[in-house]
């Protein structure tokens, strides 16, 4: 597997999208999970806006993230001067997968949206993460109940991204849509972006994808550096999210989650 995306090209496009979002919307915010993708997105935003992120950063806290993640969060807030909003959600039951995520993060985000009236939310999803995400656009509208009308998506012509605002609804902005898992790691290495230490191997295990403590399963790995992760990715046969139990359910569950408002 030798061919790789051109990081410069990807960076240019992502920065363009971030600047475009800032130009077209009045009140934007970005979702940050302390994961590698959303942290990369923040690094790109710092570059795009000459060192200072001009929008608020939202962390949806269901109280059961890894302690390392909370520590990482505090470090980064200090280091990058993040204007952080923590939206708290409660876990209703011991269930994992669809019911849990549906009840948790989406509800907390909806509540926050109502309160703060953001007209666009930056999310760090990538097309290669899951086949459902392959259908997403750089600018994707959500109606007031967060539903995603995937069959009737607005046309994107030559970079003239659809951004007509309907009352009470909002847009999702996806600056990392064209990035692969490997692109993100190579960029992290190139730009020396700080990452959540859970991604690096400890005692023979590491996390390839990070959710909350109830749903995330570590993988066997000896990759204790970013270089090691990049090497490991080149030979791996499994998909990135195979450690996330919600994905093990039927494929269309993801579609359901998306159209209900879950990222």
């Amino acid at each position, binding site marked *: 597997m030798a*061919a790789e995306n051109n990081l410069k090209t990807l960076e240019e496009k992502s920065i*363009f999208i971030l*600047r475009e979002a800032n130009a077209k919307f009045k009140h934007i915010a970005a979702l940050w999970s302390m994961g590698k993708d959303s942290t990369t997105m923040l690094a790109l935003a710092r570059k795009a806006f000459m060192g200072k992120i001009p929008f608020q950063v939202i962390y949806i806290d269901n109280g059961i993230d890894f302690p390392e993640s909370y520590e990482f969060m505090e470090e980064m807030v200090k280091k990058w001067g993040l204007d952080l909003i923590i939206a708290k959600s409660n876990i209703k039951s011991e269930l994992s997968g669809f019911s849990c995520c549906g009840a948790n993060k989406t509800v907390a985000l909806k509540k926050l949206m109502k309160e703060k009236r953001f007209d666009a939310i930056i999310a760090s999803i990538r097309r290669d993460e899951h086949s459902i995400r*392959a*259908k997403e656009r750089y600018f994707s509208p959500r109606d007031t109940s967060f539903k995603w009308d995937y069959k009737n998506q607005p046309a994107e012509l030559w970079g003239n991204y659809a951004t007509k605002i309907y009352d009470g609804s909002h847009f999702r902005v996806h600056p990392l849509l064209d990035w692969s898992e490997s692109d993100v790691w190579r960029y992290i290495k190139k730009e020396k972006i700080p990452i959540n230490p859970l991604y690096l191997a400890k005692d023979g295990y590491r996390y390839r994808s990070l959710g909350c403590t109830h749903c995330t399963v570590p993988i066997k790995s000896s990759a204790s550096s970013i270089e090691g992760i990049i090497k490991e990715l080149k030979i791996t046969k499994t998909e990135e999210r195979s450690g996330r139990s919600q994905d093990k359910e039927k494929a269309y569950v993801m579609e359901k989650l998306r159209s209900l408002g879950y990222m």
Partner: protein
Amino acid sequence: MDYRITLLGEKDHGKSTLLGNLLIKTGSIKRSRINSILPSSIGGKRFEPGYLLDSFKEERDRGMTIDQTSAEIIYKNNLLHMTDVPGHLELLKNMLTGASNASLGIFVVSAKMGEGFTNQSKRHLYLSNLMGIGAMLVAVNKMDMADFKEKAFIDIKKSITDYCSAAGIKSRLVFVPISAYNMENVIERAKNMQWYDGKPLMHTLLEMLEHINPGIVEQNGMRILIQDKIDDAFFGQVLYGKIKNGSDIILHPGGKKVRLFNLKKFNKVIGSSKAPSNIYFKLNPDANASRGDILYGIGEHPSAEIVFNAKIFPIKNISAYELSKSKVSFNGNYSNVAMRITGIFDITKAAKVPKRKNAAITPNYAINMAVKLAKKCPTEHFNAYPILGRFGMYSKSGILLGVGIVE
């Protein structure tokens, strides 16, 4: 090398099958994904590689592709970003989105009796040329259903070549006979088509990519598009040419001479920047420059700012009367400008070339018209500076009516 490619063509002609099979046979897709589409997991139906891309359950059951799907194929050290687009009339709008981000197209047309080069296929070809895809690899598919006969291939090749001459399509076309389902002549040389002396599809594709000749001759001027103003500085994109820090430039609309300084690339001070590039800069004097304005090199100017001729390709049915009465938005330079159609002087059917006045305009037609903008907006001839010479045409309520180019 990185390339962007669009797969175009009518539904059921085999685009998804081609892409699905390529993903599998080049090893570009992970095992777990392939396993999810094996017959046991899809209710025992025949194995269809196209299922890999039909990630929506409904799509799978209906046997069609909705909207745009992209996949990456790794082939001989190249990363090919392939975008599969649907071929249904009612999904034409979404197809425009798929075509617009690509530099080369693979046009899949079926050689099977009863399928072939249809009106919908003609429309795809015409539109993609309009959208800037200059070179097209025409994959004449389902050759197995035509008994691998050379005549079937030659007939389709002739239909398409004749149509392109008549419709004024200047794209470079290269024809390759294949069977996507059997992977005949896709990666390896054709076994069943000894009469074919060309290379297999993937080899041909790489050759074409290396010599992309878009058929659009770009000029040597400089164009910087202003994206946003922040405090006393600007974000912009160098669309064409090169800018040096400290240069005098002309701001349009208006034609005022200003100096560009404090040029930065993200957070770094730089001496110059070449297209394509996102930059930060200041202007002296500021001249109230704003989003949508364009910076030109000294001695250069827009082809048109208020009045110009355009060719429009509608994406839905509209009557000529409706069209001439509607106010539409010119969106070509990140600016929305109201546009009034001052004259329709030619309607050209995408299938043939005769003129017909007072016809209901369907997506089979291209319309030549005279246009007047509500305010000055710098535009360029599409053939010179395509990014600044093309636009989306919208109704008052924001529905996309068609796409157009400045002639």
